[in-house]
């Protein structure tokens, strides 16, 4: 998932020029066939499967059954609440950590920011596993049942996704000119005012895209919930897993999957829009 963060940081050209080559269609077909065959076609079948009841009739009966079940509603609510909570936590924590690295630097700050880049490539279940030793019944802050409650999952997600906000935040902060801050400070602005009026407005696009990305990833998070909350905390992805693999109820799993895809498409659209806005701003600044 770290690819998304890298993509958000590297400014792409706003106007892309290119020549139309003759015979482009035959060249484009092979990769497109692979993508449509192994991604598009399966998704279409999921949609079709969700409309087919156990007796093989076509209709919305499975949808009605799933959408009305308390199991689904609980999972959907829990997914959205966890995603929102993680995003808020990550943005606050990530912005603070990035602010210190960028504007109150200390020896070794660059090494730390490189460490953050490395952490981005780690799998999320690592955090869940580490948490059993940090907050589990035996461990540094032994606290019994907390770990397997929604709060434990929330804390794990905030821990895992904070670097995903730090990375774009650091990139955004690097565009704030030191001269601008010094002018504001020399005119008598207190640090809080410099932060609020000079630094944050500059970094808003980067922070917004980081927030959207975190929310998208947290909503689709599977590893952390599977490792920690398998018993009491169910989210949409783990509901799909248990319906698909444990009880083999494919039609119901497909309905939940469609809802999950719809939610994450909305978020992904917002994310692309936020990046696009950031780029347009960068283009205006450059001109």
């Amino acid at each position, binding site marked *: 998932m770290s690819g998304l963060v*890298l993509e958000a940081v590297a400014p792409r050209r706003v106007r892309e020029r290119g020549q139309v080559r003759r015979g482009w269609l035959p060249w*484009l077909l092979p990769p497109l066939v692979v993508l449509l065959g192994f991604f598009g*076609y399966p998704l279409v079948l999921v949609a079709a499967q969700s409309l087919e009841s156990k007796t093989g009739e076509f209709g919305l009966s499975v949808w009605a059954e799933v959408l009305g079940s308390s199991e689904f509603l609980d999972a959907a609510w829990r997914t959205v609440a966890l995603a929102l909570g993680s995003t808020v936590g990550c943005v606050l924590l990530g912005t603070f950590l990035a602010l210190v690295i960028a504007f109150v630097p200390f020896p070794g700050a660059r090494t730390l920011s490189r460490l953050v880049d490395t952490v981005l490539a780690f799998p999320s279940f690592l955090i869940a596993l580490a948490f059993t030793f940090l907050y589990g019944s035996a461990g540094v802050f032994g606290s019994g049942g907390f770990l397997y409650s929604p709060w434990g999952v929330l804390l794990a997600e905030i821990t895992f996704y904070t670097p995903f906000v730090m990375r774009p935040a650091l990139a955004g902060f690097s565009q704030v000119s030191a001269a601008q801050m010094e002018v504001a400070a020399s005119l008598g602005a207190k640090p809080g005012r410099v932060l609020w009026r000079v630094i944050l407005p500059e970094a808003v696009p980067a922070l917004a895209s980081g927030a959207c990305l975190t929310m998208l990833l947290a909503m689709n998070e599977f590893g952390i919930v599977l*490792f920690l909350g398998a018993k009491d905390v169910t989210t949409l992805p783990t509901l799909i897993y248990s319906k698909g693999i444990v009880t083999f109820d494919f039609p119901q799993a497909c309905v939940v999957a469609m809802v999950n895809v719809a939610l*994450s498409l909305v978020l992904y659209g917002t994310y692309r829009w936020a990046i696009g806005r950031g780029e347009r701003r960068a283009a205006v600044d450059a001109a």
Partner: protein
Amino acid sequence: MLLWTRRSKAIVWTVFGVLFTAVVLAPLVMIVLASFAGQWTGVFPSAFTGSHYADAFSGETFASLSVSLQTGVIASAVSVVLGTWAALAARGAPSRVRKLVDTVFHLPIAVPSVVLGLALLVAFSRPPLALNGTRWIVLLGHLMILLPFSYSTVSAAIARADPLLAQAAASLGASPARVLLKVRIPVLLPAMSASASLALAMSMGELGATMMLYPPDWRTLPASIFALTDRGQVFLASASTVLLLAVTLGGVVLLGLVRGRAAQR
């Protein structure tokens, strides 16, 4: 730069130190500590042992590591080749087609990996292609997760590359195949290598789709680690996780070296 007094700096640094430790350092330290733990009933392990690593290097766990590595290498290689191909082919298409292809190739990012796993199960448990229960379905799942990232990285590099280079080569009489092999692809090598290391890291840690798809004889290391924690063998799980991270970082560093040499040419 933002704070000048010594006291305010000290306060901010202390808060930073505590939070950074909790978020980034503590989880890593805990995993490494647990991988050496012989017994852990108090705050910290009471005895240390290397036997978990001996276990991790033998039997089931080691087989899983080998499966993960094979899956990672094959899936990343195919994904980089296909992603580069698609990005280059899209570049030559009319702009409307290019935008459409761009959107289509980015779409898998927005689909949760568990849903992708379910979709592949639904589609390939039936004819014409009954892949369910074979290792190919795991490889396909990984490929579909990696492909949008490879496409995106290489496509961004193409947008930054200087089109005049290829045009100059063509105007000097080089055939399209020669321009492709001698000019356009070498320019993209650093981006291809970067996307390969990203793909490798993602594939080695992939869990969502794999949990839906893996057959008994092709279980990747993350799936084995989950099985271990489920059985309560958390120390062996930690040792396996450290092993997974070490192998992943090794692969990424190796690809970085290739990237360095490609950039020098």
